[in-house]
């Protein structure tokens, strides 16, 4: 592991983030718009339906943004270099895959943390949801599980992009949404039909969202949920890394990786 090479990737991430309107829109603008829209919906729900439902909704969107931002950063980070015809230049430098992945993991986590803090301040001031009510320890554990899950999705999508090229690039920002209903981000799991509940409990964020909703009234850490989510996360992460390595090898074997840039 070379600190210098990791610093190189992180610097590039910082420069691209600062200079790309697309990144600013996708990460910062949309996150704040989502919270504002869902915030107003929550005000409506509080007044007309139920305060609990309103809080679940707003809490869900705040935590969901951790998944979206981390996964986006991981998958789209490579696409910036594909679109610029710079990916070969990066990979003919002596950077290892581990260093490349770790850099994007760090970059995604920093972005998610910064934006999550900003969104939480917005939610507290405009929509009366104090995320600290969940408990700082709980928040830290939820953040860990949500980011690890996002790395797995991001790494797997990156592998698919490396193997099949930019024709499936829409997966980089679109595929993650399939997990929004499946992980019961905005509502209790029991709302889902039984067969979907079974699927939901194979996904770590489901445990996080369930635990976070409990934490609104009971800030005690739900270690069972945390540990189960963490173990499933490790399993998915190992599978994602294995899958990525397989896709990367196939891509290099087919000559696709060198041709990614057209």
């Amino acid at each position: 592991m070379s600190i210098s090479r990791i610093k190189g990737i992180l610097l590039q991430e910082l420069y691209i983030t600062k200079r790309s309107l697309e990144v600013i829109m996708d990460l910062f603008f949309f996150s704040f718009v989502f919270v504002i829209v869902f915030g107003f919906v929550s005000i409506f729900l509080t007044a007309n339906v139920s305060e609990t439902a309103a809080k679940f909704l707003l809490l869900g969107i705040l935590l969901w943004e951790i998944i979206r931002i981390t996964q986006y950063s991981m998958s789209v980070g490579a696409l910036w270099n594909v679109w610029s015809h710079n990916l070969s230049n990066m990979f003919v430098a002596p950077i290892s895959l581990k260093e490349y992945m770790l850099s994007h993991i760090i970059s995604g986590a920093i972005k998610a943390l910064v934006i999550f803090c900003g969104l939480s301040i917005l939610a507290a001031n405009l929509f009366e949801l104090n995320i600290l009510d969940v408990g700082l320890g709980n928040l830290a554990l939820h953040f860990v599980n949500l980011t690890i899950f996002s790395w797995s999705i991001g790494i797997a999508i990156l592998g698919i992009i490396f193997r099949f090229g930019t024709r499936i690039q829409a997966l980089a920002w679109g595929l993650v949404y399939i997990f929004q209903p499946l992980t019961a981000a905005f509502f209790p799991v029991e709302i889902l039909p039984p067969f979907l509940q079974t699927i939901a409990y194979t996904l770590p964020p489901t445990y996080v969202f369930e635990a976070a909703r409990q934490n609104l009234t009971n800030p005690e850490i739900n270690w069972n949920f945390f540990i189960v989510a963490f173990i499933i996360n490790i399993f998915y992460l190992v599978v994602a890394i294995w899958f990525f390595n397989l896709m990367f090898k196939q891509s290099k074997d087919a000559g696709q990786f060198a041709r990614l840039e057209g």
Partner: protein
Amino acid sequence: MKDSILEVKNLAKNYGSFRALDGISFDIPKGKVIGLLGPNGAGKTTTIHILLGITLANGGQIKYFGRDFERHKQDSLQKINFASAYNTLQGRISVWENLLVFAYLYSVKNPEEKIRKLVDYFEVREFLDKRFWDLSSGQKTRVNLIKSLINDPEIILMDEPTASLDPDIADKTLSLIEDFKKNRGLSILFTSHKMDEVTRICDEVIFLDRGKVVAQDTPLGLTKRIGAVQLKLSFDGDKKLLENYLIEESGDFSFPQNFVVVINTEEKLVPKIVFGASKTGVNITDIEVKKPTLEDVFLQIARGSHVN
């Protein structure tokens, strides 16, 4: 081989049933520029991609600095670099930022000082703060070359570095390449479709065709293999007299204009033919001998003719 920077042995690559590389072998000695030429689909780019580790070979061995590339990939890549007209740097960020990123990727000591030195050498200081995609083609090429030198490589693989440049900028780029070959003792593997460039900067040329090395020699050595020259005589006088002489002396000639004859012959026969033609009674007013160029060799190979 002791002084080889790169040794390639029996390199093979299949894409499905298509044999892209069929056991090619060559060496690149220290300080030499080797041209890799061939028609489209000959396997040049595949070779470069395999030598950079971004495409996997199906067989053969690559050694950089006497060590197996697969086993010592990171160490080897630290001393290699790459420049291509088809790969650019990150377009959204500035030239300075791009170069700083690559300086860190190659773990360069004192990266800012190193970049400043190269920037002065290539005279790009005035557009350091510009975004890469706002540069002209010539400026981009120069920045690409800076990137390719940022780690003080011992060998650079160049894939058509002057493609898409106008002749003036291409000439300046070649001068820079000649400079750093001379001053730094760099080894270079160079692909191009521009035969004049290859003749100008390459010490040796490897011709690939359908995944095989079909010829390998110096540019001069390769053109000598063709053997034939084209002798063009302008004359005053009776065309019939000259025609009769040439029928006897050399069957391969034509009259593209009334008082111009073009004769295909061996180089060593030129003085004899010119002397004989002048003895026929016609007045020779101009003599032009066109020797074969690397382009003629390329065309022979591309059209499937044999080169000795």
